[in-house]
């Protein structure tokens, strides 16, 4: 089963490597959002530390929506979805594969965005790399878990990606808030109980959304 899961992941990564139609626009949009924020905000150092978390996660959400939308959008073309349905694997594993590909895409986006944010705003985000990695990993998992399920749903309905943004934004607000606050606390060097509470909230949401995604995805793609 894990070999089949890996093949599905590999299929998406290889097709993206060959076509390069999702990651480049995602990275460019993320960089553009980060640049615009940084250029417009001439703030004091402490104010930048307060804002950097929100800006990072807003840029991640806007740019990441491109990758999440295309995770099933690409399957609509040339009967790809029908072929994928013939693959001898449960829908929940298809969800898991798409979810993992989206986590990789968001991680790639943040590998570019975070150094860019640090360079432009001079906020010491890398002072606690381990804690930052925890926040970023949990945030990406949460965004990808909700986004993948909703992307499948939008594909099933046959609607445009604007519907995905409309549905995803309210659902991911708790995750974005928790990530922004946890990143702010990392930037302000105050890793106290408040930080741990945001991390706990993120863990709860991640577990809930992955479980719900795996349970409900079969109903979403049912013909």
């Amino acid at each position, binding site marked *: 089963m894990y070999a089949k899961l890996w093949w599905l992941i590999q299929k998406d990564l290889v097709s993206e490597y060959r076509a390069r139609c999702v990651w480049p626009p995602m990275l460019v949009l993320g960089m553009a959002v980060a640049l615009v924020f940084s250029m417009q905000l001439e703030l004091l150092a402490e104010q930048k530390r307060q804002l950097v978390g929100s800006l990072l996660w807003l840029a991640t959400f806007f740019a990441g929506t491109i990758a999440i939308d295309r995770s099933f959008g690409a399957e609509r073309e040339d009967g790809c979805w029908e072929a994928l349905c013939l693959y001898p694997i449960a829908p929940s594993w298809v969800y898991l594969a798409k979810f993992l590909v989206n986590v990789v895409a968001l991680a790639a986006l943040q590998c570019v965005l975070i150094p860019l944010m640090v360079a432009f705003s001079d906020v010491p985000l890398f002072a606690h790399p381990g804690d930052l990695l925890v926040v970023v990993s949990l945030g990406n998992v949460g965004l990808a878990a909700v986004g993948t399920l909703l992307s499948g749903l939008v594909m099933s309905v046959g609607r445009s990606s604007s519907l995905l943004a409309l549905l995803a934004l309210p659902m991911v607000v*708790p995750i974005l808030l928790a990530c922004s606050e946890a990143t702010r606390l990392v930037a302000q060097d105050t890793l106290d109980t408040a930080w741990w509470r945001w991390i706990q909230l993120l863990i709860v949401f991640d577990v809930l959304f992955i479980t719900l995604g795996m349970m409900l995805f079969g109903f979403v793609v049912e013909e």
Partner: protein
Amino acid sequence: MVKKARNRAKGEVVALVGASLLLTAGLVAACFVAPTEKTMGGVQRIMYLHVAVAWFALMAFAGTAAGGATYLVRRNLIWDAWAQAAAELGWVCCSLMLLTGSLWARKAWGTWWTWDPRLTAAFVLWGIYSGYLIVRSSVEEPHQRARISAVLAIVGVVDIPLVILATRWFRGIHPAAPQMEPSMRAVLLLCVAGLSAFLSLLVWQRQRQLDHERLVGLLRARVQDRVF
């Protein structure tokens, strides 16, 4: 058969009149019987309506998810009709909750809106079920609509515990469980009971209307099949 239908109609009228009287009694008690709060004065009476609509909105959204989950198990569209009816009334109550809360906040906190954890969670809930209703209206095929809506409702219900527990988990300015006089508490309970009874009946009636619409649609399709 006709007698049974008549008895049922009578029962419905009696239930509707009873629920309306209970709701009217609650609103009258909130306006004229409940003591005036010392610091806020008459504006504090908004709280009786605010809590009642908030309670019903949360229950209705939980009911929407329950209806959706039952549809996914049984594949009977009547459960989807229950889910839709509950979502519509829940959305109206959620909007009223945000509106009355905003009016109350203007007097209590000096602002129409603040990003307090509970307010934020409530606004997110409103957004989730607005999306739910938009998706419902954009899908034609009834079973596909029911499936997709059920999934959205079940994912959306995750926000309800966040609304309830936001005041305990995070520091905010929204009152958690304020101490109040026994008479105020009694009026509040009367308002919650009256509004819940009245709106539950409306949900029931709306569900029946939706079910009848579906049956009429089926009959119309059959007649068209015979004719052409």
